[in-house]
């Protein structure tokens, strides 16, 4: 029950005012000696009864209102107040109504004696913070110490001398009349001890209670004092002490109940509280020190001894408390450590049991941990992995099957961007075994300041195989399906065309249906093939710069027939911008959108198509005036086989895949396609494509006149600086961080020049140069040494020696000279799977300073020829992965390579037809059994000479 703040204190205030008024009245009454002695006594004793009853009632009320837990202290206090009330009533009876029969001690005293246990009990249970038994004991001992000290002092000052004077007084008399003040001292001590400990709203009631007992104690002590001196105290001002005491107890009970949670913060006064008991002790000791004679009094000695014992007890209680706390803490720590160990163990089990390889890398790409699966996949032990460079161990390759240089490693990129990445088509190297295809997930860790990454990877050999099988299946099946469809379509078309004998109308109708269905089937097969390829990400795009206007015109042209058929007008609006895209696919997309728009337009309606430049994109839109697409279908229409509802499909006859294919094509170009929300009624579909602006900065791979420089330098910053400088001057730069990496990269794609730092981890610069010289492929590549020292020994010839710190313009001119040198040397691509023969040929060519680049497979030859436009192709026809014909076909397809002189050196005897198929530039054909290598060499040189003289590179 929520009581408003005002009413909470209202009762208290009212009672306080009433008590104050009454008290003042009584005081006045006491001072002004009005009426007889009996009247005075009656008023005084009556006020005792009234106010002690008031206190009892207030306490019982508080007990009823309080939360269950807090009821006890009020019951107890109420009990104490009731004893006072009953005792006072009896006292009143005897004093006022039957004064002659009063005895001492009398029945009233019984009740007064009973007050003490109730009061002490109330004190001990009053604090709302549940005191631990230790704290409770301490509170009691503190109270006792203070009480004993007060007793000591009062004995010295008052009671002792008094007792000395009263030799003949009865023992009972003495006991009873000293009982009250002594017990009062105890109660006050405890109350004050607790009052000091109280915090917040607890404080007021506790202080009132303590004050109440102090008042009562004063009255008791005063009465005892007077009684021992033989005086009667009734009617004296001491009466007020009791009255006020009862009033204060009642007011304490009337303070609004505190139900709020106790403030558990450390009480700043805790220190004061701990020190407080020592103050009276200190006083005692001081007094003893100054008046050592007192010690002869046995009582005083007894009290002093008691105080000392209490102090010791208190100290031991504190000690016990501390030990308990410490023990508790240690247990807690033990428990937490155990929990932590369990957690770590569980995590380790998870990592150990994982089927995927999981490695942790630090910022520089070194492995910090690797789970057993990772070690197994990479063919190394866990210890080998930790601490090594992940890039070096895995030798990752990209989709083009080339080694990925460390600067372009997606792991490094992910860490520097702080963004997670998935690489779906990578290749890793298994130690002492082959490469295997991987899918990896890179997760940088560390939040804003990336401290490393966790890389999860798995072997996807099987999945790749399955994907390949699926692709082949789809391709073969779609091809197989087309063959019977061809005759079906053909026969039906002829029937429908009316070129054969006229068919009667009903049969004509049937044929019409058959033709339409066949057309639908054909479209469906095409679409399925497209969708599968898009889903596999294998849509091959042949990109070129296309003006948007041309695209739109072609698409509109294709749709002219359909538009006329549906009586719909197609309007081409503004067409700005140029995109870098596959023409056929884009026209297919726009035509598809137009076809939908036409089909869904009302007869006589207009379809609008346009293209505008918008920021970095070109925005295409196709709008119709048809029924529109409800907002909740805007996403769903791009899904496979999504038709709005079945009702209009017969009219529309779509395959349901058109928009899905459009989305696939647009997204693969890096654009977005969506249903625009603002054309109502009707539908507008928009898509964006990035503008076709080729970055003019980096030289493209395809340009054969661009020279490649391999920079082998282990310091990443130096490598970056040199690389940027060379790239800015039009070179293509490949970076390597170690000799081994440089060798691997150079063996794949021989560069036009190599910049070699001498100090490298692993094999040093000299050893690397030596290795380069020993490979045919790289023998003639000019090497420029970069070193911190001046030229010392030079076991192999180098183009130039550059000292650190590098003079950048000197570097540029040296590289330029080296490349120019190399460029003058003709390059022959030798495609021969017999390594012995290949070596022989290479050596023969090397004699003439001709760079022989060797590939033993057709795929390898393709890769090499992409980056390194050869001046002549020496081709064996029987290759492991293909016949030479396919390779020649590929070459013919490339504008750079279609005029390359071709020398076929094969075991096959070729007839004219085959020779015709192998045409590139000027061609010569030799059979291995008939012609020896030296003759081939001669012919090749002749060809090269004629070519160089009249060459256009």
């Amino acid at each position, binding site marked *: 029950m929520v009581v408003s703040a005002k009413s909470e204190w209202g009762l208290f205030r009212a009672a306080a005012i009433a008590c104050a008024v009454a008290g003042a009245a009584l005081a006045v009454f006491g001072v002004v000696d009005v009426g007889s002695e009996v009247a005075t006594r009656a008023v005084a004793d009556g006020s005792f009864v009234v106010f002690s009853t008031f206190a009892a009632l207030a306490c019982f009320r508080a007990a009823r209102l309080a939360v269950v837990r807090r009821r006890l202290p009020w019951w107890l206090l109420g009990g104490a107040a009731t004893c006072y009330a009953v005792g006072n009533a009896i006292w009143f009876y005897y004093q006022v109504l039957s004064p002659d029969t009063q005895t001492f001690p009398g029945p009233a005293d019984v009740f007064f004696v009973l007050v003490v246990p109730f009061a002490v009990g109330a004190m001990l249970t009053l604090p709302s913070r549940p005191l631990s038994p230790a704290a409770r004991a301490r509170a009691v001992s503190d109270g006792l110490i203070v009480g004993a000290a007060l007793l000591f002092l009062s004995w010295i000052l008052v009671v002792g001398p008094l007792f000395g004077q009263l030799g003949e007084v009865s023992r009972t008399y003495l006991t009873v009349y000293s009982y009250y003040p002594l017990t009062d001292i105890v109660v006050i001590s405890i109350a004050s001890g607790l009052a000091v400990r109280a915090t917040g709203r607890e404080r007021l009631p506790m202080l009132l209670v303590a004050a109440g007992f102090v008042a009562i104690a004063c009255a008791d002590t005063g009465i005892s004092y007077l009684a021992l001196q033989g005086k009667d105290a009734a009617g004296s001002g001491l009466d007020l002490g009791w009255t006020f005491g009862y009033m204060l107890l009642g007011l304490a009970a009337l303070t609004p109940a505190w139900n709020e949670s106790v403030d558990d913060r450390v009480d700043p006064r805790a220190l004061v509280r701990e020190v407080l008991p020592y103050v009276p002790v200190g006083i005692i000791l001081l007094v003893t020190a100054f008046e050592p004679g007192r010690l002869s009094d046995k009582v005083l000695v007894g009290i002093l001894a008691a105080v000392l014992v209490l102090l010791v007890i208190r100290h031991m209680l504190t000690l016990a408390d501390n030990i308990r706390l410490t023990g508790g803490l240690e247990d807690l720590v033990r428990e937490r450590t155990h929990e932590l160990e369990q957690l770590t163990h569980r995590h380790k089990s998870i990592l150990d049991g994982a089927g995927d390889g999981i490695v942790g890398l630090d910022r520089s790409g070194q492995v910090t941990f690797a789970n057993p699966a990772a070690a197994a996949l990479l063919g190394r032990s866990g210890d080998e992995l930790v601490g090594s460079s992940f890039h070096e161990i895995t030798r990752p390759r990209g989709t083009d099957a080339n080694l990925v240089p460390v600067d372009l490693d997606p792991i490094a990129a992910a860490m520097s961007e702080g963004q997670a990445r998935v690489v779906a088509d990578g290749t890793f190297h298994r130690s002492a075994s082959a490469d295997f295809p991987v899918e990896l997930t890179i997760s940088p860790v560390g939040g804003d300041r990336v401290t490393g990454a966790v890389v999860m990877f798995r072997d996807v050999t099987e999945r790749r195989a399955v994907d390949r099988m699926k692709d082949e299946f789809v*391709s073969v099946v779609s*091809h197989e399906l*087309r*063959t*019977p*469809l*061809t*005759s*079906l*379509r*053909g*026969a039906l*078309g*002829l029937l429908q*065309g009316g*070129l*054969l004998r006229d068919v009667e109308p009903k049969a004509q109708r049937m044929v019409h249906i058959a033709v339409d269905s*066949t057309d639908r089937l*054909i479209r469906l097969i*095409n679409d399925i*093939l497209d969708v599968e390829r898009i889903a596999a990400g294998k849509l*091959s795009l*042949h990109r070129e710069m296309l003006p948007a206007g041309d695209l739109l015109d072609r698409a509109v042209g294709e749709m002219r027939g359909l538009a006329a058929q549906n009586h719909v007008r197609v309007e081409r609006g503004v067409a700005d911008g140029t995109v870098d895209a*596959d023409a*056929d696919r884009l026209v297919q997309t726009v035509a598809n959108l137009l076809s939908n728009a036409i089909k869904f337009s009302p007869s006589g309606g207009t379809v609008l198509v346009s293209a505008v430049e918008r920021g970095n994109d070109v925005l295409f839109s196709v709008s119709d005036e048809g029924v529109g697409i409800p907002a909740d279908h805007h996403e769903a229409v791009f899904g496979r086989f999504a038709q709005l509802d079945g009702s209009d499909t017969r009219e529309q006859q779509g395959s349901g895949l058109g928009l899905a294919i459009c989305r696939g094509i647009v997204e693969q170009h890096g654009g977005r396609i969506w249903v625009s929300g603002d054309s109502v009624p009707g539908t507008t579909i928009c898509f964006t494509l990035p503008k076709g602006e080729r970055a003019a900065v980096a030289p493209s791979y395809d340009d054969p006149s661009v020279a490649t420089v391999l920079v082998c330098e282990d310091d990443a910053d130096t490598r970056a600086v040199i690389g940027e400088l060379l790239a800015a001057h039009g070179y293509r730069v490949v970076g390597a961080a170690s000799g081994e990496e440089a060798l691997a990269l150079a063996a794949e794609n021989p560069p036009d020049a190599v910049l070699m730092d001498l100090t490298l981890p692993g094999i040093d610069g000299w050893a690397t140069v030596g290795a380069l010289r020993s490979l045919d492929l790289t023998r003639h590549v000019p090497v420029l040494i970069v070193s911190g020292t001046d030229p010392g020994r030079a076991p192999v010839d180098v183009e130039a020696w550059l000292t650190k710190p590098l003079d950048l313009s000197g570097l540029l001119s040296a590289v330029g000279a080296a490349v120019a040198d190399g460029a003058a040397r003709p390059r022959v691509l030798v495609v021969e799977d017999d390594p012995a023969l290949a070596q022989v040929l290479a050596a023969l060519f090397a004699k003439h300073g001709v760079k022989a680049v060797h590939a033993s497979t057709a795929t390898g030859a393709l890769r090499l020829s992409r980056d390194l436009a050869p001046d002549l192709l020496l081709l064996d026809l029987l290759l492991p992965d293909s016949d030479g014909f396919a390779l020649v*076909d*590929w070459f*013919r*397809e490339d504008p750079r390579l*279609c005029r390359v002189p071709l020398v076929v050196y094969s075991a096959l005897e070729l007839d*004219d*037809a*085959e*020779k*015709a*198929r192998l045409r590139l530039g000027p061609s010569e054909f030799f059979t291995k059994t008939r012609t020896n290598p030296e003759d081939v060499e001669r012919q090749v040189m002749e060809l090269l000479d004629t070519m160089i003289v009249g060459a256009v590179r």
Partner: protein
Amino acid sequence: MTRRVLVVDDDDAIREVAQMALELVAGWKVELAASGEEALEISAADPPDAVLLDVMMPSMDGPAVFARLQADPRTHGVPVVLLTAKVQPAERRRWDGLGVAGVLTKPFDPLRLAEDVAQLLGWEE
């Protein structure tokens, strides 16, 4: 003078439909060959005005036949149009450099076949 076209395809039905289509629509005289070898024999004996050549055939494929035709002086200048069920642009571009007059896709619309062929060959029909 009536144009003479040689249609080469290993599938009987397709041969027949193609013949029908070209004869009925354009009025050309159509000869048939079921294989590359047969086609070469026929053309060598009496070179046609054009050859409609299927790509996927068992023993000798379209391009091979074309190469042979080009190699033989008698049939050297005969224009060839390839016919294929393969639709992937990458594969089709392989034949661009061959020197054929064009490539048509299967399935075709029989009523438009003659027009498409004529367009590729530059015939005005």
